[in-house]
């Protein structure tokens, strides 16, 4: 828990105050708002106090408080002042365009800043370690008959062996998962985020020790190093060092030998405590004997500075032959090892058993592109409006030229104006980011902070962005406008030609193309994910509670008691204890032997489920042949297998019935196939269904409980089950999830993409529509005279409106034709990541085009409606 004194006002706000405030006021102002902050902290809570503090900082942003630049007396400085003054007058005079320009640009910039935050965070993973360039992780590629796997983990003593065999491998450290129920006094926690670790961990990774000795803290068995967060959880404000923690099932207590800083979120692993690897050895895991087919260890190697491990890669076949050759031949499995750069793991590694859910270079790319797209759309608005309005300023330019302005000065003037608008938009965008960041964080499931925008080197990005956008948007109008000939302008009383109308149309088409692509993309993603979620998985997922208790002696002993107690509740249909569930990734993958047609045995690696008798019934699995496990047949426990349909195909059998009675062996058990079930999806729908073997096993392996409820079950049912549970098992809290939610969680990354994509594409179309609206307003105004004349000559109102709208509609049809092929290619490449994917559906593409066209028409129709009601007398009066 944080004590009141530790909560300080937002640092960036305080920094900002110091940045702008006059020296003589800083001390006092800072003191004042700090005092108010503390009062608010007491009365109204942290969030309010912080908000108020920030608000106060901005309220103090008054002319009288702001630092003055040294006075420079020069003509060009005065000219700039004049440009800015004129620019502000211009903004005030045409409020509609100013609002559209600035707000559109601000929304574009805000989106850009948010995505910038996300992308820089994704790219920052593991770069903070001082040795990050020297560290590589070993990935194991394992080939077994008929299958191939890529694991993020390695055999136990591979690292040690490499250190002793190769001088270029300076050191190694390993991490391995630790599960257990830990208790201190009356506090009990089921720890799932703990790791075994070698003492060298702290030499590799820059996670500082806050107390305790980093060199020795993990060198003895039964030692723990907690993160600050975990230390608070267990001991509150007490000193954690030297305290003893009890682990369920292990006699000897663990002693806390150190407290380290929390693992930064931009790290490819996460844990809240490290347990010494020696502990594992003393528990009987053979961590340094010749166990080559026991994969459990994330293994990191340290190389000399500047060393390229691809040199080592060429020596690896020899190394593998020398150390594992015989073992490989007898097990009929072959290894290859790959070195993964530490800093690449988060974005580029997608192996089995990653330490934490990794990011994805593809989404980083997609969202970078979207950020640039949206920014460009907003810039295009800006350019188009400036070009369209250029004729209105002709007189001013003519006069300036007559009085002696040269072309360069006029260009400077227009660029100053656009940079000013860009700056104003940036300020607004910054507030938008402040406001939108919490929801953006929820959307992407991360915890980004606005401070990151203005830290370190990024602080230089923003002035550059302001200048860049200002120049980009102001360049063309500046060139065109400054090229006007004063004599023409002043003679005719206004330039009549429309500047850059081709460019303007090209830009509009460009905007519409981007918007259409984003809309079609959103439709494709939505359709694909909806079809994934509604896919018949082959088992019952509704009304299913999952309780991952981790397996434990006390549960194994009381399994039947729990079952009979639970089943007594009328809302409970059935209960199954298993090792893995169809929603989890923890299906085992084991060495398997099966009988082929001519009676010989063949081996392969197949996925395996360890279950109890109720599994198939609880999940509603359908039998194609044979029977389910039977409680009354005791031998089922020792020699019965149920396989899925894919297994029979793999075995080369024509029908499921043929499989019954075939000899089969897996996971140290040999017996016969007694039943064949219909294929069900036990992995994500990214991959096709693989062979699956189901067998009964001892209760001690069954760490997950599935509870199938009746349709009418509610929260009260769960609460009553919890009561029963607590009556039997005290050490492990009853924490259940619904299976359908757990299933949806497996598509969390895709759901995030979907949500981000739809929000950003609606923003893009919104900005584009804003621009169209302003453009049509302008164009209606410029065509007032010609429309009036048409009316006088007898053209009906609808015809004029139609002609006016058609000009824009043509552009949107052109945009649709350009965007369909691009959208098609992009969506095909995204869909190729899925095994179950929707087919190409032209309806989606046409629908996307229709949406853009409709929005275009609606935006423009406001103006076309208005021009039908033009009174020619009013517009032609002065001619």
């Amino acid at each position, binding site marked *: 828990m944080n004590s009141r004194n530790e909560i*300080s006002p937002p640092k960036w706000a305080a920094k900002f105050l110091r940045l702008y405030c006059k020296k003589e006021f800083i*001390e*006092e*102002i*800072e*003191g*004042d*708002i*700090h*005092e*108010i902050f*503390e009062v608010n902290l007491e009365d109204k809570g942290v969030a309010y106090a912080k908000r108020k503090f920030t608000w*106060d900082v901005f*309220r*103090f942003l*008054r002319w*009288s*408080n702001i630092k003055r630049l040294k006075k420079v007396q020069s003509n060009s400085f005065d000219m700039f002042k004049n440009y800015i003054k004129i620019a502000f007058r211009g903004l005030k005079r045409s409020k509609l365009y100013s609002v559209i320009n600035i707000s559109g640009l601000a929304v574009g910039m805000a989106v850009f800043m948010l995505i910038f935050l996300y992308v820089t965070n994704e790219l920052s993973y593991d770069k903070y370690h001082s040795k990050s360039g020297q560290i590589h992780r070993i990935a194991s590629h394992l080939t077994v008959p008929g299958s191939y796997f890529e694991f993020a983990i390695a055999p136990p003593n591979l690292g040690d062996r490499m250190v002793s065999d190769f001088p270029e491998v300076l050191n190694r450290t390993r991490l391995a998962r630790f599960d257990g129920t830990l208790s201190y006094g009356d506090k009990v926690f089921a720890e799932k985020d703990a790791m075994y670790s070698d003492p060298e961990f702290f030499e590799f990774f820059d996670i500082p020790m806050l107390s305790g000795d980093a060199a020795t803290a993990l060198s003895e068995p039964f030692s723990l190093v907690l993160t600050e967060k975990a230390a608070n959880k267990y001991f509150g404000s007490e000193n954690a060092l030297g305290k003893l923690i009890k682990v369920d099932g292990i006699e000897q207590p663990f002693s806390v030998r150190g407290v380290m800083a929390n693992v930064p979120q931009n790290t490819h692993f996460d844990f809240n405590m490290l347990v010494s690897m020696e502990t594992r050895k003393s528990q009987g895991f053979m961590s340094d004997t010749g166990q080559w087919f026991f994969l459990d260890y994330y293994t990191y190697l340290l190389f000399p500075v500047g060393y390229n491990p691809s040199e080592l890669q060429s020596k690896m076949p020899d190394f593998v032959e020398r150390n594992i050759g015989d073992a490989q031949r007898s097990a009929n499995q072959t290894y290859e090892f790959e070195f993964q750069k530490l800093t690449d793991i988060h974005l580029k590694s997608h192996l089995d058993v990653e330490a934490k859910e990794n990011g994805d270079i593809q989404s980083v790319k997609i969202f970078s592109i979207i950020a640039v797209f949206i920014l460009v759309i907003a810039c295009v608005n800006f350019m188009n409006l400036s070009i369209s309005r250029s004729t209105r300023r002709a007189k001013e330019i003519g006069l300036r030229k007559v009085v002696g302005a040269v072309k360069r000065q006029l260009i400077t003037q227009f660029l100053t104006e656009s940079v000013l608008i860009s700056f104003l938009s940036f300020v607004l965008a910054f507030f938008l980011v402040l406001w939108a960041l919490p929801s953006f964080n929820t959307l992407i499931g991360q915890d980004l902070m606005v401070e990151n925008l203005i830290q370190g080197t990024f602080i230089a990005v923003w002035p550059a962005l302001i200048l860049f956008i200002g120049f980009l948007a102001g360049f063309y109008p500046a060139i065109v406008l400054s090229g006007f000939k004063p004599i023409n302008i002043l003679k005719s009383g206004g330039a009549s030609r429309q500047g850059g109308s081709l460019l303007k149309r090209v830009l509009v088409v460009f905007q519409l193309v981007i918007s259409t692509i984003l809309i079609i993309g959103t439709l494709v993603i939505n359709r694909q994910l909806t079809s994934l979620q509604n896919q018949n998985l082959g088992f019952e997922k509704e009304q299913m509670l999952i309780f991952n208790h981790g397996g434990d002696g006390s549960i194994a002993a009381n399994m039947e008691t729990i079952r009979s107690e639970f089943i007594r509740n009328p809302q409970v249909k059935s209960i199954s204890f298993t090792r893995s569930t169809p929603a989890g990734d923890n299906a085992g993958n084991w060495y398997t032997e099966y009988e082929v047609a001519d009676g010989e045995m063949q081996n392969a690696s197949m996925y395996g489920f360890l279950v109890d008798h109720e599994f198939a019934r609880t999940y509603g699995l359908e039998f194609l042949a044979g029977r389910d496990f039977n409680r009354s047949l005791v031998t089922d426990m020792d020699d019965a297998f149920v396989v899925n349909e894919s297994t029979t195909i793999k075995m080369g059998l024509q029908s499921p019935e043929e499989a019954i009675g075939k000899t089969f062996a897996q996971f140290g058990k040999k017996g016969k196939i007694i039943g064949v079930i219909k294929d069900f999806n036990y992995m994500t729908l990214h991959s096709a269904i693989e062979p699956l073997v189901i067998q009964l096993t001892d209760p001690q392996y069954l760490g997950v409980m599935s509870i199938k409820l009746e349709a009418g079950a509610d929260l009260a049912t769960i609460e009553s089950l919890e009561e029963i549970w607590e009556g039997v098992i005290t050490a492990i809290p009853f924490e259940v999830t619904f299976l359908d939610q757990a299933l949806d969680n497996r598509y969390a990354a895709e759901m995030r993409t979907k949500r981000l994509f739809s929000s950003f594409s609606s923003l893009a179309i919104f900005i584009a529509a804003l621009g169209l609206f302003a453009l049509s307003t302008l164009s209606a105004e410029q065509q007032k005279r010609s429309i009036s004349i048409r009316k006088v000559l007898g053209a009906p109102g609808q015809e004029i409106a139609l002609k006016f709208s058609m000009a824009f509609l043509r552009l949107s049809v052109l945009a649709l034709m350009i965007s369909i092929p691009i959208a098609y290619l992009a969506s095909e490449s995204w869909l190729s990541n899925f095994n179950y994917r929707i087919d190409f559906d032209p309806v989606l593409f046409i629908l996307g085009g229709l949406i853009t066209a409709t929005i275009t028409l609606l935006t423009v129709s406001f103006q076309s409606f208005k021009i039908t009601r033009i009174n020619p007398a009013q517009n032609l009066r002065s001619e």
Partner: protein
Amino acid sequence: MPQYYVYKTEDNESKTMKGNHLGEFEELVLLVVAALQGNAYAVSVKDEIEEKANRKANISAVHSTLYRLEDKGLLDSEIGGATNTRGGKSKRLFKITASGIKALQNAEELRATFRNVIPQLSGLK
């Protein structure tokens, strides 16, 4: 549409800004500073206004008013001691000057002259 621009000179600008006229909020702040008797700084003035006048006052508004009054010579100030509650920052304590008292009296007299000729108000007095 014709537009007229009025250019301010340095001279008339300074007169309008630093005259002896007291704004409503300025007068309130001046009164509070006088009433707080030596313990007046931005936060205490703000709290007092919020409590007694029952209206919201922003700290930055109070702050700039205090300085404006000092520029007019109605207030005087000195740096006070730091306290722990302010993140270790010291505060500027304000006190009213003789001309400040004078300005308050003038404002009061001005009101009195009008009050005396309004029957409903003079009757109450």
